C-alpha cells in the first residue's frame, strides 16, 4: 500500500508549487488519493515556499504530521535545513546544490550555513541525503527555470509511478512552447539521481536496483 508524505521546499520563483501540482496530478492519475497544501508566506518574490503533498489510499489531513516526512525535495540548501526536524527516521532528502542568501546574509548580519551544517541537520535522524547539481545542470541546458522539472525527474526515481504518467502530467501543466526542454530536464533529473545513487552505493559497497526501493515510502 502506497503511503507517501512529500515535502517540497524552496524559494519564491523556483517553481515549487508547480512541481507539487505535477506530483499530485501523477498520484491522482495513478488512482490514489492525494492532498496538497502550499505555504507561500507574504512575499511576492524570494520568500520561503513550502508545499506538502500526501499520497495514499485515503488521506485525511492535508498537513504532514511531525516527523512524518518520507521524502524532502529541496530546491535550496538553507530551505532544506529548515525542515530537518520534520523528517521521518530514515527519510530520503534530494537536495539541489544551490544557495540563495536571505537578506540577513546578503547584508552581512548572519552567515549562510555551511554544507556540513546542512548535512548534519538533515542526517541527524538517519536520513539518506542525495545532493544533485540541479541548478548547474539546468543552467547548462540553457534555462535555469527548468530546475523544478529536473528535480521532479530526480524525485520520480524514488516513487512507484510509471514515467509515462509523469511525462503526461508535465505536458498537461506546461505551455506547449516549453514542454520539450522540460521533458529533457525531467530525463536529466532521473539520470542525475541514478548516477549519484550509483556513486553512493559504490562508496558504501551496496547493490542498488536503480529504483530506490530503500526510500521507505512503499
Amino acid at each position, binding site marked *: 500500500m502506497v503511503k507517501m508524505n512529500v515535502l517540497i521546499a524552496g524559494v519564491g520563483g523556483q517553481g515549487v508549487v508547480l512541481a507539487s501540482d505535477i506530483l499530485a496530478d501523477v498520484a*491522482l492519475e495513478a488512482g490514489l488519493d*492525494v492532498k496538497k497544501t502550499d*505555504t507561500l508566506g*507574504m*512575499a511576492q518574490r524570494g520568500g520561503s515556499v513550502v508545499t506538502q503533498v500526501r499520497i495514499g489510499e485515503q488521506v485525511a489531513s492535508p498537513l504532514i504530521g511531525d516527523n512524518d516526512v518520507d521524502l524532502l525535495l529541496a530546491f535550496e540548501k538553507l*530551505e532544506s535545513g529548515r525542515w530537518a526536524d520534520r523528517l521521518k527516521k530514515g527519510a530520503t532528502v534530494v537536495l539541489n546544490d544551490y544557495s540563495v542568501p*536571505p537578506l540577513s546574509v546578503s547584508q552581512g548580519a548572519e552567515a549562510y550555513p555551511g554544507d556540513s551544517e546542512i548535512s548534519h541537520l538533515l542526517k541527524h535522524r538517519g536520513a539518506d541525503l542525495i545532493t544533485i547539481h540541479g541548478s548547474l545542470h539546468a543552467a547548462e541546458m540553457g534555462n535555469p527555470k527548468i530546475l523544478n522539472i529536473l528535480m521532479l525527474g530526480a524525485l520520480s526515481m524514488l516513487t512507484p509511478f510509471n514515467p509515462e504518467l509523469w511525462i503526461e502530467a508535465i505536458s498537461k501543466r506546461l505551455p506547449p512552447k516549453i514542454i520539450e526542454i522540460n521533458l529533457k530536464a525531467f530525463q536529466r533529473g532521473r539520470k542525475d539521481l541514478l548516477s549519484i545513487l550509483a556513486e553512493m552505493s559504490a562508496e558504501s559497497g551496496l547493490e542498488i536496483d536503480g529504483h530506490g526501493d530503500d526510500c521507505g515510502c512503499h
Partner: protein
Amino acid sequence: MKKLLSGNEAIALGAYQAGLKVAAAYPGTPSTEILENLAAYKDLHAEWSTNEKVAMEVGMGASYAGVRALVSMKHVGLNVAADAFMAASMTGVVGGLVVVSADDPGMHSSQNEQDNRYFAKFAKVPLLEPSDSQEAYDFMALAFEMSEHFDTPVLLRMTTRLSHSKTVVQIHREDRQITGPGGFNRNPGKFIMLPVNARQRHPLVETRLAKLAVFAESLSINRIAEGTKQLGIITSGVSFQYAMETAPGASILKLGLTYPLPEKMVREFAAGVEKLVVVEELEPFLEEQILAMGINVKGKSLIPRVGELNQDIVRDAFESAGWIETIEKPVQDGLIDEVKTLPKRPPLLCPGCPHTGIFSVLHSLGLRRKTTIGAEAGLVITGDIGCYTLAAYPPLEAMDTCACMGAGIGQALGMEKAGINDRVVAIIGDSTFLHSGITGLINAVYNGSAMTLLILDNRTTAMTGHQQNPGTGFTAQGAPAPSVNFANLAKSCGASDVQEVDAFDIKALRSVLKSALDSRSLNVIVVRGSCVAITPGGGEALTIDTERCTQCGTCLSLGCTAIRKGAEGELTIDNQLCRGGACRLCQQLCSHQAIEQIIKKVV
C-alpha cells in the same frame, strides 16, 4: 470526473454550476482565488469591488433582483461588510445570496485570527463549514437552495488550510443550472428597513432560525460515523480531518451546518458515548452551544484556542486526556532548536519595488527616533496593509503602525490632535486608498490636519497577487475601465497641496518630501511607479565597480536582496535579481559612482 481542486477553485466551480449570476469581492488572502476563478467565466458578472461592504451591497442588489449572487472576502473583510451583512439578514433575499468568509487561523497573512462563525450567530443566518474541496464544491448548490428556501443570506466559512489545499473532487455535472433573467418586484415591507418595516421583519428572522434548526436535524451533511462508544467527537471544517487522523476508531458527529445546531442529533450522539469532546479550530463556537444545552462536553480545556490546529496538536490533547494510546515520540535531541538558529527568510520588498525609494528617503532623513517624548521632534509614520507594510522590517524600519485597511490616515490625525510635536506621515497604497482611505482624507482636511499623506500608486493590488482595481484601467474580467487619477481625487477631497513624483527618482522624492514636511499644512504626495511583478523587462542589470567601491554600505540600506555583502566586505549585485534600468535606486544613492549598468541580463 475527478479533479484536484483547491478549496477556492471548488467554490468557484460549484457556484458557477449552481447558476451564479453576480460575484463581488475585494482581494484578501486566503479568499482571493474564488473571485479570480469566477472572473474567467464569461456568462456571469464577476467584479473586484472597491471594498467588502460595497461587494456585499452588490450581492444584495443582485439577490433582490432575483439572481444568485456570491460575495467573498477574507475574515476581516466581513468586519468592513458587517453593516450590509447584518442588514441583508433582516431583508432576506430573493435570488440565493451566499457570503464566503475565508478565515485565517494561524494568521498566515492577517492581523488577527477572529473566528467568523460568530458572525452567523450574530446575524442569525445559517453557517456552512466544508472540510475539504469536495464539500466546498458540493455545499455551493445547497447554500443557494437554502438561501432561497429560507429567505436568508448563507454564510460559508472557509479557512486558509481549506482554501489553499488541493484535494480530489468528484465533479457531478458538466452543465450549469439554468436560471432566468433578473427582475425586481417592489416590496417595501421587505426591502425598506425603516423602523416600521424592520419591526415586522425581526420576528420573521427568529422564525426562520427556528425552521433552520428543524431542517438541520435531517440534513445529510450533518452525519454520524459510528465507532467506539468510549469516545465521541463533535467536529466541523478542517478539524474533522485532524480528528479522523488522530482517532479514526472514535464515534464522530461531523457537522456541515454548524449554525443553527441540530440539537436533537447532538443530544442523541452525546447520550451514546462515554466521553464527549469538540474538536474545533480557534473559538469554542460549538462547545459553548453544546454546553448551553446542558451537555457535559470537553473542548478548549484540552485543545488550544490560539493558532491553527493539526493532527499532532489534537493527538497531544487526546493523549494527555488518556483517550488514545501514546505513540512513541522522537527523542528530544535538540534538532528543533538547531533548526531555529538558521537564518530566517522574512517577507521582503522585491528588488525593483517602487516602494523601496520613498521608504529609503523617509528612513534617511535622520528624523526617526525611538521616542519623541521629551525629545526633539521626529517623524512618525502611520500605515496600513499592503506590500508597503514590509517596510517595517530592517533595514528600512519606516513604518510605525499597521492595524487595518486605511487606518493610517485617521491614526495620523489622532496623533496630531493628541498634541505630539512630531511630523506625522500617513502612508497608503492605491487600492487601499480606494478601499478605505478617501473618507479618512476628507476627514483630515475637514478637521484641520497638517499631515503629509503619501499615496503609493504601484498600479495594482500587489500583495494579494496583482488584482485589478479602479486605478488600473481594467476590470476583474479584463475589460477596459476608467482609471482613477489619484492626484485629482485627492484634490477633490479638499487637499489643495497635491504633488506627483516618480517612485524611482530619489532626488525628487527627497526634495518633495522635505518641502512637504516643512510646509506645516496638509499635503498629499502621489508616488507613482509600477509594481515590479507586473512590469516586464528591466533591461541590463547593474554591477559594482570594485575599484571605485569603498564598501561604505550605503547601497545596502535599501534592503535590496540583489545587493550582497561578501565575506571580505565586498559588495556585488546579483544580475538575475537586479531590475537594472527600471530601478537604479542604488546607483542614485552611491556617492562614489561605483554602480554601473553593464552586464547583459541573462534570461
